[in-house]
């Protein structure tokens, strides 16, 4: 129950990322510039932060299909509250994050109290969140946002490279999640629940409370992702999040976290998100259609899960 991964599953994602970077650096002299790499980080920030929440859920052997839609709903709520009702930006953002956290709570309660499988629960809330988003926004994009709401999209210079505040926030959240999962009792409990919920309960850890906490925290992360998405595009977009659902799961799986729960490191999910972003960026720089990025992602997902399966067999 150390939560340590076998070398292949841990190192695989990092090796894939490094290989992709080396390849693209040899193909385009613009690839390895500070500006370009900072750009890729900006582009993966939304999926990256959703993937933190998704990692927590997957570590408990669950899955959250609702993540992207809940994120879109949070974005619509915060932008409409600010632009249409004139609420001060911080308060509006708080309301948006509140709604996504509430959705996390609902997911968690249905999983822990009603004992429904996470796949079904979040399939339901995926559709509910999507419908509410469309009904509430009337399918219209929300514009004319206060500048303070999009401040995370602003950049600052480090040695000639422009870095966005959103990137900093994402990296900070990853650092925090990594620390909590690795060094605190609650973090270790998440791994324990994913490894063997029954055994964990028998040693006196309140597994239901841990699970509920994980879903609530996931909702909170989706809310932060809403703010990042709003800051990046400068609008409240009712059609946001439609690909982020699966993109976030892809990032977690590419990052080596086991879909069977209990194993994985959250930093891997950042690497997973970066791999997808690096391919999209690098292929454009090479002048190659970005549909190949989709192809490569598919192959890597299968390799990642295969590596996990093999290492699992090894330990049995």
């Amino acid at each position, binding site marked *: 129950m150390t939560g340590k991964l076998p070398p292949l599953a841990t190192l695989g994602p990092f090796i894939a990322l490094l290989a992709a970077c080396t390849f693209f650096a040899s193909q385009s002299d613009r690839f390895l510039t500070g500006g370009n790499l900072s750009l890729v980080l900006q582009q993966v920030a939304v999926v990256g932060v959703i993937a933190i929440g998704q990692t927590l859920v997957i570590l408990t052997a669950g899955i959250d299909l609702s993540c992207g839609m809940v994120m879109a709903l949070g974005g619509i709520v915060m932008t409409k509250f600010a632009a249409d009702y004139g609420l001060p930006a911080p308060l509006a953002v708080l309301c948006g994050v509140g709604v996504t956290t509430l959705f996390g709570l609902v997911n968690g309660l249905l999983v822990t109290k009603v004992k429904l499988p996470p796949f079904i629960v979040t399939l339901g809330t995926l559709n509910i969140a999507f419908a509410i988003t469309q009904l509430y926004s009337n399918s219209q994009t929300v514009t004319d946002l206060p500048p303070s709401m999009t401040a995370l999209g602003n950049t600052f210079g480090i040695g000639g490279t422009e870095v966005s505040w959103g990137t900093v926030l994402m990296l900070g959240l990853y650092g925090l999640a990594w620390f909590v999962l690795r060094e605190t009792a609650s973090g270790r409990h998440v791994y324990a629940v994913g490894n063997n919920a029954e055994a964990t309960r028998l040693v006196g850890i309140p597994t239901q409370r841990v699970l509920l906490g994980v879903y609530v925290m996931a909702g909170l992360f989706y809310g932060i992702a809403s703010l990042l998405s709003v800051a990046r595009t400068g609008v409240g977009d*009712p059609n946001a999040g439609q690909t982020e659902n699966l993109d976030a799961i892809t990032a977690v799986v590419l990052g080596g976290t086991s879909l069977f729960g209990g194993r994985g490191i959250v930093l891997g999910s950042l690497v997973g998100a970066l791999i997808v972003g690096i391919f999209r960026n690098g292929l454009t*720089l090479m002048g190659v259609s970005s549909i190949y990025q989709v192809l490569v992602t598919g192959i890597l997902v299968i390799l990642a899960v295969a590596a996990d399966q093999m290492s699992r067999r090894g330990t049995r």
Partner: protein
Amino acid sequence: MRQPTRIALATLLLAPAGFAFAADAPAIGLITKTETNPFFVKMKEGASEAAKAKGAKLLSGAGKADGDNAGQVTAMENMIAAGAKTILITPSDSKAIVPAIKKARDKGVLIIALDSPADPADATDALFATDNYKAGVLIGQYAKAALGSTPAKIITLDLFPGHPVGAQRHNGFLKGFGLAAPDAKSNELGKAAEVVCMADSFGDQAKGQTAMENCLQKSPDVTVVYTINEPAAAGAYNALKKAGKEKGVIIVSVDGGCQGIKDVGAGRIAATSQQYPLKMAAMGVDAGIEYAKSGKKPSGYTDTGVTLIAAKPVAGVDSKDVKTGTELCWGKK
């Protein structure tokens, strides 16, 4: 189990009454690609208003997502079962929808394609749509004239591979710009030396922004940006602004939604080709009512018109101002 059985029985008993009602007011079906795209939301509103004004009953349905052919087929079957004699459809998959259309026409249902054609185009009775190639030509001509003697370095933010509307706008733009381009029938995106980067935006603002950022890394000296629609243009503008290059780059687009026209007024988009979804829908409803009355079917292609909207007119290219564009725009004014 008892409750559902009772409901099913009640439905059966009530059904004949429902059909009797449908026979009085002609039922017209409208099937859009999705329920959520503002373009189709407006189209539905236009159809619903026209139907109400003329005493017809509008049934509406849609696929779940762009490209959901099965969802459209299901909607079509349900509408025919509900007694619709005319169905207006914006095909999501121009080829895959054809067998279902043929089945409906064999039952005497009038099928009119709106916005984009079926493949082959004569699979439907008629097509009411924007001339997307012409929409592209207009913004191509505008961009060329507005650019003047500055060298052309073009980025194109396209739809996604294989979609005829994406190809027609892209190729029309190249043609209007005076570059070699495939004709209106081609489904391939034309390439020219002046086009320094091509990327797919999926007509989405966030994806358009990502695509533009990546293209800017490849070609920072861009002078013209062609975009498939106005959300993609807004994404392109965001990317340019973040790179500090929003001045001096000409962004052109297609659609004429109210937000897009606002962006033209604010100088974020230089010019856009405006199309008219409400008109397509209203014409479709009219045709359906005519068919119910006299049995006369429309045929062939009807151009629903396209107008170039620009804040700054250029010599040699006809355009209308932002005020006109706002009056005719669709979406939230």
